[in-house]
């Protein structure tokens, strides 16, 4: 089949959704499909730009390309699914969260003016129409599906996807806690830094980059964590796999996350995950004392969990092994079979 995978692109930014869609195209091709990525730049501010940029997708004609029919389009995150196509499937990574659960928080975008309030509602209406057109609607996690149902009343089937392809392996712990989440506020890396400040029993490696890096480095300095926290920036696949393999645990505690590949990557490396009770999507697979530790979103609780895992190698390995059994179940073969069924 000819399949177009749709992805909005924020120029110069790359995160989980970009990795996911790249791999989806590769995996579709590996199964004999003619697949390609269709990407349109996205900027969501100021004012109504969020709608006019979304509308660009509506003007695309993806029913055929280069004289050949496109059999299926697969929308992923807002606003790629605004596209029109008789066989539009959506594998929802997330909606425009500023218009939903982030509204009214520090991470929100819309103010209290009537225009901003109406703009937010218009984004919701756009979602209701565009997602309602989908012939099949999947969500990457129960959290994403739940938000969709609560916000606009649409039901999505939960379909997790495998994490990025890395040379995963398991090796003895070198005692550090790894964070590989993109450095932005929503990922709450500062909680881990504060935890390290309260608990001397572990070091931290941060293997990623992002707009919050400078602030986080300042937090580490201010807390006297020099020598205990290492910011490695974005690292190669080989290096990332090595860090996963040799850490004692992986910290992954964003606010109400959509899905998050972090836990799956940790599990495939046989490592337990520390997350928080308000993390959202990760809680689909991080189960307290079964595949990791789920604690209150407080530095002291996170510090205690990290120290405990560092001091209990056998128990940590058992949690990681249980997580690996879960992660092994999530394969591209299964996911693509459902997606195209």
């Amino acid at each position, binding site marked *: 089949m000819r399949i177009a995978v749709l992805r909005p692109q924020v120029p110069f930014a790359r995160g989980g959704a970009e990795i996911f869609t790249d791999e989806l195209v590769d995996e579709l091709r590996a199964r004999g499909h003619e697949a390609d990525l269709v990407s349109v730049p996205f900027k969501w501010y100021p*004012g*109504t*730009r969020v*709608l*006019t940029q979304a*509308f660009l997708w*509506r*003007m695309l004609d993806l029913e055929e390309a280069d004289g050949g029919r496109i059999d299926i389009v697969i929308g992923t995150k807002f606003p790629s699914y*605004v596209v*029109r196509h008789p066989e539009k499937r959506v594998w929802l990574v997330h909606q425009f969260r500023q218009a939903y659960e982030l509204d009214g928080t520090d991470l929100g975008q819309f103010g*209290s*003016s*009537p*225009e*901003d*309030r*109406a*703009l*937010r*509602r*218009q984004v*919701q*209406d*756009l979602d209701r*129409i*565009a997602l309602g057109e989908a012939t099949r609607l999947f969500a990457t996690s129960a959290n994403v599906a739940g938000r969709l149902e609560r916000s606009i009343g649409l039901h999505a089937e939960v379909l997790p996807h495998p994490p990025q392809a890395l040379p995963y392996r398991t090796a003895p712990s070198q005692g550090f806690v790894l964070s590989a989440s993109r450095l932005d506020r929503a990922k709450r890396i500062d909680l881990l830094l504060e935890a390290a400040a309260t608990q001397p029993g572990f070091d931290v490696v941060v293997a990623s980059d992002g707009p919050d890096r400078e602030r986080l480095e300042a937090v580490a300095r201010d807390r006297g964590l020099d020598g205990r926290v290492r910011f490695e920036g974005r690292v190669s696949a080989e290096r990332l796999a090595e860090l996963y393999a040799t850490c004692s645990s992986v910290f992954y505690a964003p606010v109400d996350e959509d899905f998050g590949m972090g836990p799956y990557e940790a599990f495939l490396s046989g490592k337990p995950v520390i997350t928080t009770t308000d993390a959202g999507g990760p809680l689909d697979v991080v189960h307290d004392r079964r595949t990791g530790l789920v604690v209150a979103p407080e530095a002291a609780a996170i510090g205690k969990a990290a120290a405990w895992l560092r001091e209990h190698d056998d128990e940590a390995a058992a949690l990681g092994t249980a997580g690996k059994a879960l992660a092994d179940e999530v394969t591209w073969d299964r996911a693509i079979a459902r997606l195209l069924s």
Partner: protein
Amino acid sequence: MKVAYFSPVPPEASGIADYSALLLPALREHVDVEVVKRGAKRPPRGVDLAVYHIGNNPEAHGWILDALRRTPGLVVLHDFVLHHLVAGVTIGRRDGHGYLDAMEREHGVVGRLLAHGVLDKRLPPLWEARPEDFPLTGEVLSLANGLIVHSHFVEERARGAGFEGPLARVPHPAWPVPDLPSADIAGGPLFGAFGNVNQSKRVPQLLEAFARVRDDHPDARLLLVGATSPGFDLDRRLQRLGLGGDGIVREGFVDERRLWALMAACDVHVSLRSPTMGETSGTAIRALSLGKPLVVSDVGWFAELPEGVALRVAVGAQEIDDLTAALRLLAERPDARAAMGVAARHLATTEHDLSRVAAGQAAAFERVAGGPAVADAVLREVSEAAGAVGIGAGSAEASEIARRLSEVDLGD
């Protein structure tokens, strides 16, 4: 966002006053609401939106219609048929010409002639005889820049009447059940009918059906609560049907506490209506909160109650037979009553959940208050971009852009 709220409120005795008393605290969790004093002609300064609660009762809503005429805004349309309201603010204010004009505006010359007949007392009042044929909703719809309705029934009629603005269907909120003991009234089972005792509540049909049911269920009782409408001879009807004695329990108008106590005592609630003005029944909503099975007329909002919650009885030739069958079924099947009660309660706590209803209303407020500015800004940017690449107004490309915008509700 600040909203001016035009509605009857307690202590005014009206169903919509009760509705607003229930809704306002929940609504204030979403928007800044200023309740406008009765009689005010305009919304206070500094509000972003005026919200007008319009129902068919001229006493309760005449002043609100007056204010709407001065300052258009969002209308919460509680009844689709507004003939009684329009008659009240025209004939009731000695403005016969206003009534003639209203009838002509919506029903042409025939309407004007009929209105003359009413004014000359050659025809019975249309608001009593044929209100559903002459709803007189047009003026309110033309003044509304947004609409909230409670039912598909009203939504369809508003659209059918040509209303093209934003419309939200937000169900009537359900009351929490007060912590009160049930009234001590027994029955095997006890049927209850609440509201004015008259023809439009189908009381004659109910009495006939109940009399038949009582022939084989002598312990069944019917609780009739509400004032008897003028001209409705209840006693004579009861006598003719042999329903004297203890088969009927009668209470007149009761206060809210007594209402809940009486409703709680019933095994089955009967809520019949014809004609309907498109209203939602506050007592039927209370029955849902209490988890009581319902028997309703198959009209208007009542017909939209799920089958598992209410047995629906068509109005017409078979009405008494069907009503008898429904009452018999519920008299003989306590298991069905229980299952319907559970479904009723579920409906009250989901679709009619107060916080959900308030959120739905607030969303509608936001869409109406800021929506036009958003639509203008989107259209401006899209048309500027189109113009910059040479797509002119009226071209095929411009038509396609307009069509795509309309598909996703971003413009016409």
